[in-house]
């Protein structure tokens, strides 16, 4: 088919579907539902197609075939195990066969927890502690007075926010009273920082999502202009 025509039809479809979605602003209606279900259907199908090609073919089938032709026994075995684990998962919904499927879930959990632990320790805990402790970081930007003050605010605020989530409430023990007072006062201050963060994030979210709306309006306007102009 003519590519130009396909493009034109495509743009028209895109504009119409965009308007269908925006019709939700007037209330849930037939057009919106149509767009929604079309979208969900396409999204599921597309995700599957991508996974099929980029994972099952590119990461499993192709290397397996390659390993077999090369006679690389170890590689074949490894890929077969992966294939087996993937296949076992498919039996999980069957009540009597769910046992073997648990092996696949176990691998998922093992990998997932390890990645989560690694991420939490190496990606967040260590660098963020390091960053919070740097009192002088803002001096370059805001001058010595406000800069040091800012560094101090970050330190106090970070620690306070952390304490705000304190779970344990107990009056036992020698230090408990002191700890309780510290948690409630410093943690209370931390709550203020959380609220400030919430207010700021709300504003930033608005900016980001407004950009999306502007982008969509621009798209509709451009398409309409194209039709009118050419």
């Amino acid at each position, binding site marked *: 088919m003519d590519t130009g025509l396909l493009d034109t039809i495509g743009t028209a479809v895109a504009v119409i579907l965009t308007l269908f979605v925006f019709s939700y*602003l*007037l209330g849930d209606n037939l057009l919106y539902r149509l767009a929604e279900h079309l979208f969900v259907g396409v999204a599921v199908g*597309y*995700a599957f197609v*991508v*996974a099929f*090609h*980029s*994972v099952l073919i*590119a*990461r499993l089938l*192709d*290397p397996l075939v390659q390993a077999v032709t090369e006679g690389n026994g170890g590689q074949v075995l490894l890929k077969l195990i992966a294939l087996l684990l993937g296949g076992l998962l498919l039996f999980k919904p069957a*009540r*009597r066969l769910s*046992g073997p499927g648990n092996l696949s879930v176990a691998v998922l959990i093992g*990998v997932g927890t390890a*990645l989560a632990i*690694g*991420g939490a320790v*190496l*990606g*967040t805990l260590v*660098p*963020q502690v*390091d*960053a919070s402790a*740097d009192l002088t*970081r803002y001096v370059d*930007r805001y001058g010595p007075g406000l800069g040091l003050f800012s560094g101090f605010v970050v330190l106090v605020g970070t620690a306070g926010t952390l304490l705000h989530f304190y779970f344990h409430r107990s009056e036992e023990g020698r230090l408990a009273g002191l700890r309780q007072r510290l948690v409630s006062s410093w943690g209370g201050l931390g709550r203020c920082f959380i609220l400030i*963060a919430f207010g*700021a*994030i709300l504003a*930033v*979210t*608005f*900016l*980001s*999502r*407004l*950009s*999306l*709306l*502007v*982008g*969509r*309006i*621009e*798209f509709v*306007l451009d398409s309409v202009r194209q039709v009118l102009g050419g």
Partner: protein
Amino acid sequence: MIYCPKCGTANRDGSKFCNECGESFGSQTRIKCPNCDTWNPVQNVFCSACGHRIVSLPPKPGVEAPPAIKGLSLPVKPGIGTEEDRSAATPGGEEDIPAWLRELEASLSAEGAAGKAALTEPAEVPDWLRDLRDSLVGEPPEVAEEGLPDRLAALRPTAPPAQPAAPPPAAEEEELPDWLAALRPTAPPAPPAAPPPAAEEEELPDWLVPSEEGLAEGETLVRAEIPDWLLTLKPRELRKEEEVEAPTPAKEAVVEETGLLAGLQDILPVEIIIAQPRLAKAGEEIAPVIETPQARLFAQIVARPPTVASKVMPRPQAGLLALLPRWILSIALIAALTLPLLLDRPLLARTIEPAPTVSSLYETISRLGSGARVLVAFDYDPTTSSEMDVVAQTLIGHLMDRQARIVAVSLLPAGPASAASLLADQAAAHPGYEEGYGRLYVNMGYLPGQVAAVRLLGESLEMALPCDFYGTSRADLELMGQVKELQDFDLILELTAGQDSLRWWIEQVGTPYGLPLAAGVSALVEPFARAYYQTGSQQLKGVVAGVPDALTYSALRSGGEGLTGIPAARLDSQLAGHLLFIVAILVSNVAYLVQRSRRES
């Protein structure tokens, strides 16, 4: 642990049926600990999790159960009765109680609460209870509990009078709420002020006898304590010192607000009782013995056709937003955004003041030598493409200005498609790049596995990027021949609208391999990205966040002139949107304050 006699599978303690084959474990059943909600095997006297006593003392012989309700299979400690006892059924259909209660609830919902309270008045109320009622009955019923459906509130004050006469209909063991769990193994409830007729031990009602479970012989009966819930019924003045107040259940405590039992807790947890549709089986009704006025009343109520429960009312929205339909706001916003875009020239003159994060990224890219290899991660999809494309266009444009070699990847399934069209557009605008696919830039497609994919990229580029988006093997792509490992890249540019993927690149690639990393992000991720720009090691070389930053960046590229044309119109449009938002917030606040002061006065 219970091992299934049929298939040998180990099942969780207290399981009633095998998890694998569904085999019933017969006598095995379980008890929910009223303290910590753990399921315990029926043999347990104390909870295996928290040590709380779950089986309290069986009833003393003298205190007999009030008119019995059948249909209960309480996991009472076995040994209360014999086989014959169980066959000696008390009057009353097995399933009719939950049914009448539901119909009671349904029919009561239609009627006024106060009137009903008078109707359902029991003939023989204990004095203390009558005093209590007399003092309260005049009060207007008010639905104080937030969010409770009206019919529920209407039911509460009326139904309780039935309680002293009949034990609360109990559920299957699993369904017992806390208050019932506390009651379960103990004596049948009896109001202390009105001792029920004495009865012989053998005539224990059916409901006290486990209906399914086998009976363990040799267990003896112990004197009962007054159950906690009953204790709460007793007026404070009449309580003995040692009768401490029943501990408030950890779960939603239902405090009666109106009617007879105002102030008492957990009198009738209606929710749970009604929550037993399985108990009700139509067509098995046995005519109840109508002897007392209450019973006649109940019979009348049962005879009435059920009314359909009203749907949950939508929460009322206070403020101006409720008055103004949603679409006025919507139309205003769309109009405010569209007008500046329709004008050809900028409304306001602006000067360029790039943020340090932006100029830092601009300098980083400007310093790249010709032919520098850059890995660009298109970690955004159509969700945010309206915003991210603006950011990506200017950054990719700048890279192509600098004659960089671009390897594009994406952690999102839908990312490569966006990358493909954006790269093609930018290549068309840069001389030399038009035919440069494979040599000057490649699109290596989707990297499945999220954080794992980033990690894999660091470990083996070959394994992570076997072929490109169009299915061409990496061996056939000239550019891929130049990059054997991640360290061959001079810069990694992460384009994302999600903080997770930014974090993954920093954690898995930037930090461990010490590669220079820069980010073009959505405004949404800005505060988060700043955190990394600031950390001591400067994990990010620069950040362009959102459309405003991208527009200043493109102004930097064009030589620092003021903003003109489409970028300026976009900013004007954003400004109009922001003004509208601020006005909406202020108006909603004013409306709220006016409303509040009116309510106060």
